[in-house]
């Protein structure tokens, strides 16, 4: 098995936008945006379906390699804000069944695209968290807003002493590099840095069709997540995923 060891407990599986957390026997993924092509097709863009298929391949691969018993989704399992589209529903159901077949537990922390998912909680038999979830030393959340346990606006809030690392999605991080033949090459990446004394890991979007935001090209003000706007993003490391490999490209600052 080929992994990149991020910490003593967290492993990044080569070539996959998936983190394996050993102590809780879980893999963490983010931003699936299931139903994406179906929704695009209704708006006049007839993309062949490939997203769910690719996600199942990647997750299946990760589960096989790690033996994890839990899949944690840090938000945006589906794509539409305002409702649950039929394509989203059928793809979510398929993904839930897939997780069952793999004998894994599925935990969803809701993202900004996950409204109305609650109504399927019983039907799908999955755990759903509205904002954040603490598990072991980790605090999982989506990232479009500050989780309550971090937000300064909520009085007396402190990130629990026990939490050592924050794990989120939402940003769809990627980096762009100019290749030797001067072609722009865009790679999805993990971002790994610090926020208020805790480690912060940003997961890349596992959605196959979305390219992501060029963290090394966009100014900080254009980033989506409030927590990243506050953090010193230049000092984050970009760990890129692509062509079957996972490679540490060093600090964002050096990639600008």
């Amino acid at each position, binding site marked *: 098995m080929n992994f990149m060891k991020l910490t003593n407990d967290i492993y990044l599986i080569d070539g996959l936008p998936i983190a394996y957390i050993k102590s809780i026997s879980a893999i963490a993924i983010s931003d699936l945006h299931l139903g994406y092509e179906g929704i*695009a097709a209704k*708006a*006049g*863009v*007839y*993309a*062949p379906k490939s997203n769910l298929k690719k996600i199942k391949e990647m997750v299946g691969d990760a589960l096989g390699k790690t033996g994890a018993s839990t899949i944690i989704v840090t938000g945006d399992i589906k794509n539409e804000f305002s409702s649950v589209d039929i394509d989203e529903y059928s793809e979510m159901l398929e993904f839930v069944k897939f997780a069952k077949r793999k004998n894994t537990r599925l935990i969803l922390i809701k993202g900004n695209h996950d409204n109305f998912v609650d109504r399927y909680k019983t039907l799908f038999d999955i755990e759903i968290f509205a904002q954040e979830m603490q598990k072991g030393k980790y605090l999982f959340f989506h990232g479009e807003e500050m989780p309550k346990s971090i937000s300064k606006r909520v009085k007396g809030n402190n990130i629990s002493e026990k939490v050592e690392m924050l794990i989120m999605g939402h940003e769809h991080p990627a980096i762009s590099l100019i290749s030797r033949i*001067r*072609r*722009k090459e865009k790679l999805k990446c993990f971002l790994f840095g610090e926020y208020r004394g805790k480690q912060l890991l940003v997961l890349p979007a596992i959605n196959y069709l979305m390219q992501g935001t060029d963290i090394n090209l966009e100014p900080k003000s254009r980033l989506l997540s409030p927590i990243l706007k506050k953090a010193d993003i230049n000092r984050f490391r970009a760990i890129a995923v692509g062509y079957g490999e996972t490679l540490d490209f060093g600090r964002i600052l050096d990639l600008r």
Partner: protein
Amino acid sequence: MFEYTDKPFSDAESLAPLNKYVRQWFNENFSELTLPQKFAFKFIANGKNLLVTAPTGSGKTLSSFLSIINALFNYSLEGSLENKIYCIYVSPLRALNNDIYRNLKLPLDKIYDIIVKEKGIDIIKDNIQKVTIGIRTGDTEQSERAKQLKNPPNILVTTPESLAIMLSSEKFSENFRSVQYIIIDEVHELANNKRGMHLALSVERLARIAEHRLVRIGMSATLYPLEEAAKFLVGYEKGKPRDCIIVDASWSKKFDLKLMAPVQDLIYSNDALIENETYKILDSVIKHNKTTLIFTNTRSNTERVIFNLKKRFNYDLDIAAHHGSLSRESRLSVEEMLKKGDLKCVVSSTSLELGVDIGTINNVVQLGSPKSVTRLIQRIGRSGHSFKDTARGEIIVLDRDDLVECAIMIDSLKSKSLDAFRVPQNPLDVLAQHILGMSLTSQWSIDDAYNLVVQAYPFHALPRADFDSVLDYLAGNYVELESRKVYSKIWLDKSGGTFSRRGNAKLIFMLNQGTIPDEASINVIAGRKHIGSIQEEFFEKLKPNDIFALGGHLYRFESSNGMNCYVSLADAAAPTIPPWFSEQLPLSYELAMNINKFRRQMLDAIIKDRESIGANIKKLKKGEKIDAVLKSMGVDQASSNVIFSYFMEQFLFAGTIPNDKILLIEQTYDATQEVNLIIFHSLYGRRINDALSRLFAIELSNRFDTDVGIMINDNGFILKPDQKIDFTLKTNYNIVDALHSKDIEEMMKENLKRTELLKNRFRHVAVRSFMILKRYKSFKMTVNKQQMSSRMLLKVVEEMDQNFPVLKETYREIFNEVMDLTNAREIISKIKNKEIECKFISTPVPSPFAHTIVSFGYEDILVMKHKRDYLRHLHQLVIEKINENNDHA
């Protein structure tokens, strides 16, 4: 079978088939027939398919229509004329349609008046109806359309797009049962592009609906080869082209063309002088003529000429610009003023090439080379109103390459050696539109539909597998079963061998059909700053590291994302691509080859005359042979001297002159930029050079493990390796061997990945194929959104299947229309089997023939001055070198 004829019928023979009323009208209005009319009246009266090429103003409209009008009045006189469409006229221009409508309405009314005068009240008893004409374009009001549906006109004037919509309307297409004639005007504007391919299929669908055999009439400005145009016009039946009579009356107009250089010395005269002299010529031409039309090669130049004429000579509202960037209203108003004779001069880039009625033009001036003989004829042919007038014009050349190119162009015109065009074959996006359109009106047997499609010339050799793949694509068979309801646009029953319409398809078709893509405007961003914008067609020509001018500065193209183009300031560098590059049409292959032939004749003559020429660069004497070659060109003494010294400089400096048998490869050093240049003197036109340069660059880059920059123009290409490499003749032949043995299409596909060119063209094809809808239900998708969506699609499709029709068509379009991969491959084989000999030289500074390409990027940016400085600098170095060699000798 195609039958050529150059024997016109006599006036009496031509007029004999006409009934007395139509003949009376004709005789009252015209004293004689024009040349095209002497062919057309009789042949059309006999129901023949006919292609006529003739210059503008030679009575083409009446040529095609009079016999048809006559036939319709015959029905009328018999009392059998019904409210049915008998004739459809299609032209690519709405403006032209309006002209035609006006120009026919009058005769129709007049002829009817003549009949009424004679028959009096009997017209009611005998049911003698007026012959009606109607117009249908995108501008036609809804109420008018509804009227046409119930009460169709006898003659329907329309555009290719509107025809396709009518054909796909269940109700309207019923009106086409009665059609007997179709006239396609401006064939030369349609036969080489997707609009025309689209029309060719519409015509076959029309022929299928019509209960009579369709008489097909094509009118065109000159184009070559005529058989190709005829095939496009008449289509195929049972695997063979249908019969057609071909009349080439293009040469009925005489040409009086002058080649002019503003100054004797095109190199060392200063800019102010050249500019002054150029404008003096223009002013004098304008003053001496009632109306002058000036053609420039770019829109920005058009504006500049107008600005200067006004500033220098106090012209005001009596001169105007006419080009594609102007609003439709301002163009129309210029056309109106021209017709009324209110303008002394109009300056245009390409927009006035077409046959819109603009009244009488006395003289045409062409600034710089128009790059093709056919275009030259088309442009100069706009002067002289009547078919008997001589078309008068001047070509003003601005540098020595221009001079040679234009001299040969005029020579080619005289010998009627024209550029060849090709009708693109098997455009699958156009096919997809038609299959969807066909499904809307009835259920089709798949075999039957295929047999119909292959009757259109652009699809006559369409592989059945490609046809089936388009059906599969439209049926949504590229996604899983449960999604097809949304993805499919036709209902395909393979076991039953039929296809038919699906619910939402009509809306999709009506809102999205057509072949002209939305052009996007791309933001140029340096750092975080928005600098300005460039057109998408220019954007797709940019390669990373290209340097281009915008708003008075130079920028280096670095990367892009969707609608943004990221650049960095590069004022110290040399521009590699001029901003008009996408606007100017490439040099035609045939003209390029004629120039190459001339170069070879000159080389042979120089070698034979070597003794008598002398070695002193300042006192060269033409020998007999050289004199003969130059005389045969028909240029004046001054031009002849310029050409002679230009060729001698090249010969003395480089030891040879590149031509059709010799490909000169020159390794040199550009001191101003401190880079090594490998210059290929491949005068094959830009489309071939585009393909060749990419292929050579890929091989070179692999062999030496270095980045290779590329610059191309019509006369050659330059490879700029990032580091110094040891390029030799052997390297060159190794590359040629490698290219010869490889699948260059695969190499190009790999090379095109993630380029703007591929992305943009894929978007166009995806939109044409209805894979991305521009309009649907209540929304209109912005170009920006189209672009983002197409990028996502491309990523998925590329991994899916290389034969997916939308992707396959994208590559076909790039290989055959943007580039010319077929001829590039041909050149590679010719080098391989030594039909073309490569010669390699190493030079301290670029040789004279390389100067225009080396300084190419400078052209037309506002710093034209820099280009001349740079050219003079190069020229100086060359002359010094030649003198130095002589001193040693």
